[in-house]
C-alpha cells in the first residue's frame, strides 16, 4: 500500500472503530484498495490532481464510515439462499449421522453412552421417551451448528444472532433498544419468573423451577447491570470507547459464568406432582424441560464467551490507541 494520507487514514481508523473485530483486517484491506484504485483513476483523468485530493475524492465516494459500517454489519437485504442452504444441508447431514449412530448403538445393545450427553443408545420404551431422545439429538445438533456457524465465522452473513448475544451497534437507538430489552429481562427474572414457569395445581400456580436454580436468579442482575452500563455509556456519547467495551466484556463474562453455573446445577426443573400430574408424567416432563434448558444455557454460554473474547480484544485495541 502507498504511504498514509490523513483523509484515507482518518476514514479507515473510524471505520475500524465501528466494525466487529473479526471483520476489521479484511474490510480495511478491501476498502483501502478501492480508495487507491479510484484515486488512481481520478489522477488518470486529471493529471494535475494531487494524490491527496484524489484520495479525498475516492473517500467521498464511499460515503461516511458510519453509513458504510452500518451497511456492512446489518442483515442482508437479499435472500440468503446460499447461507440457508449450507446451514440446512449441514444440519441435515449431522442430524442423520448422529441419529444413525444412536440407532446403531441401540441395535447393538449398548448400555453406556460413548460420549455422555451427546451420543448414546436410544431408550426402547416408552414411545414418548424415544421421541424425546430424537428431539434432544436434533436440538443438540441445531445448537451446535448455530454455534459453529456464528462463532467460527461460517455464518456467511445470513445467520442472525439473538440480540442479547451480538454486540449491538454503538448508536443511541441501539442503546435505547438494549436498555428496554434489559429492563424487560430484569422484570421477567426478578418479578414474574415463578409465575411464568409454572403449572396449575388446583387453584394455585406452582413453579416447576428447582429451588437450587431459583437461588441463582438474582446473580443474573450482575450481568444485566454491566450491559446496562455499556448502553448508558453509549447514550452519554462514549459508545465504542474503552469504558463501554470493558463493561460489555464484563457483562458477557458475568452472563456466561451465570449460564455455566446454572447448567451445572443438579436440578433445574422439579415438576410438582399432584392429582393431575402423575409421577411418571412428571419425570418425563422434568427430563424434557431439563434438556431444553440445558441446551439453551450451553449455547447461550458459548455465544457469550465469544462476545466476551471479541469485546475484550476490542477493549485492548482501544487502550493501545489511547
Amino acid at each position: 500500500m502507498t504511504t498514509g494520507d490523513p483523509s484515507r487514514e482518518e476514514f479507515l481508523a473510524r471505520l475500524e472503530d465501528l466494525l466487529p473485530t473479526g471483520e476489521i483486517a479484511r474490510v480495511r484491506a478491501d476498502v483501502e484498495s478501492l480508495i487507491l484504485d479510484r484515486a488512481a483513476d481520478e489522477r488518470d483523468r486529471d493529471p494535475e490532481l494531487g494524490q491527496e485530493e484524489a484520495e479525498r475524492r475516492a473517500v467521498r465516494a464511499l460515503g461516511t464510515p458510519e453509513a458504510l459500517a452500518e451497511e456492512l454489519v446489518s442483515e442482508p437485504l437479499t435472500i440468503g439462499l446460499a447461507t440457508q442452504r449450507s446451514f440446512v444441508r449441514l444440519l441435515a447431514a449431522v442430524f442423520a449421522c448422529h441419529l444413525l449412530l444412536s440407532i446403531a448403538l441401540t441395535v447393538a445393545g449398548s448400555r453406556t453412552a460413548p460420549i455422555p450427553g451427546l451420543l448414546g443408545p436410544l431408550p426402547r420404551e416408552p414411545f414418548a421417551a424415544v421421541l424425546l431422545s430424537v428431539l434432544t439429538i436434533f436440538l443438540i445438533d441445531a445448537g451446535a451448528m448455530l454455534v459453529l456457524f456464528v462463532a467460527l465465522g461460517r455464518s456467511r452473513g445470513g445467520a442472525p444472532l439473538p440480540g442479547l448475544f451480538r454486540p449491538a451497534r454503538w448508536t443511541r437507538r441501539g442503546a435505547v433498544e438494549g436498555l428496554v430489552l434489559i429492563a424487560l429481562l430484569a422484570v421477567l427474572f426478578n418479578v414474574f419468573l415463578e409465575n411464568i414457569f409454572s403449572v396449575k395445581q388446583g387453584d394455585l400456580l406452582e413453579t416447576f423451577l428447582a429451588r437450587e436454580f431459583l437461588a441463582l436468579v438474582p446473580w443474573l442482575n450482575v450481568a444485566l447491570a454491566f450491559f446496562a452500563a455499556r448502553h448508558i455509556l453509549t447514550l452519554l456519547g462514549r459508545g465504542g470507547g474503552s469504558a463501554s467495551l470493558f463493561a460489555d466484556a464484563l457483562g458477557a463474562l458475568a452472563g456466561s459464568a451465570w449460564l455455566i453455573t446454572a447448567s451445572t446445577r443438579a436440578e433445574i426443573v422439579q415438576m410438582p406432582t399432584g392429582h393431575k400430574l402423575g409421577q411418571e408424567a412428571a419425570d418425563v416432563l422434568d427430563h424434557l424441560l431439563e434438556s431444553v434448558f440445558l441446551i439453551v444455557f450451553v449455547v447461550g454460554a458459548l455465544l457469550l464467551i465469544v462476545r466476551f473474547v471479541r469485546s475484550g480484544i476490542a477493549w485492548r485495541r482501544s487502550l493501545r490507541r489511547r
Partner: protein
Amino acid sequence: MTGGVDPKFEAELRRGVVQVVALLHLESPRYGYDLVRLLGEAGFAIEEGTLYPILRRFEKQGVLSSRWDTDGARPRKYYELSADGRELKDAMLKAWDAVREATEEAIRQAAAASDGAASESSP
C-alpha cells in the same frame, strides 16, 4: 404525486437489480473499482460505498470467491462467481423474469382496460 419519479423509489428499484447485474458481470474475475466502472457504463451508476457492502455480503455468503493479486502496482482483490453464486444468479434471474413478466402483464391489462373505457365513452 406529480412530476418525475421519487428518487428514493428509483434507488430502491435499482438496488435489487444492480445485485443481479453485478453477478452477471462477475462470471469472469473483476476487481471492485473495475466493476464500479462497468456498472456505470451499463447505466447502473453506483458508488463504491454502495457496491462494496454488496460484494462483501456475497463474499461472506459464499456467492463470490475472491483472491488478491499483488503482481501489479497496487494489490487488487478480484471477485468471481462461485458454484453457489452461479446457482444464486440463476435463481435471481428467474425471480427477475417472474417480476418482469408480472409487471408487463399488469401493464397490458391496464392498457386494455383503458382502451375499453375509451371506446365505451366514444360516440
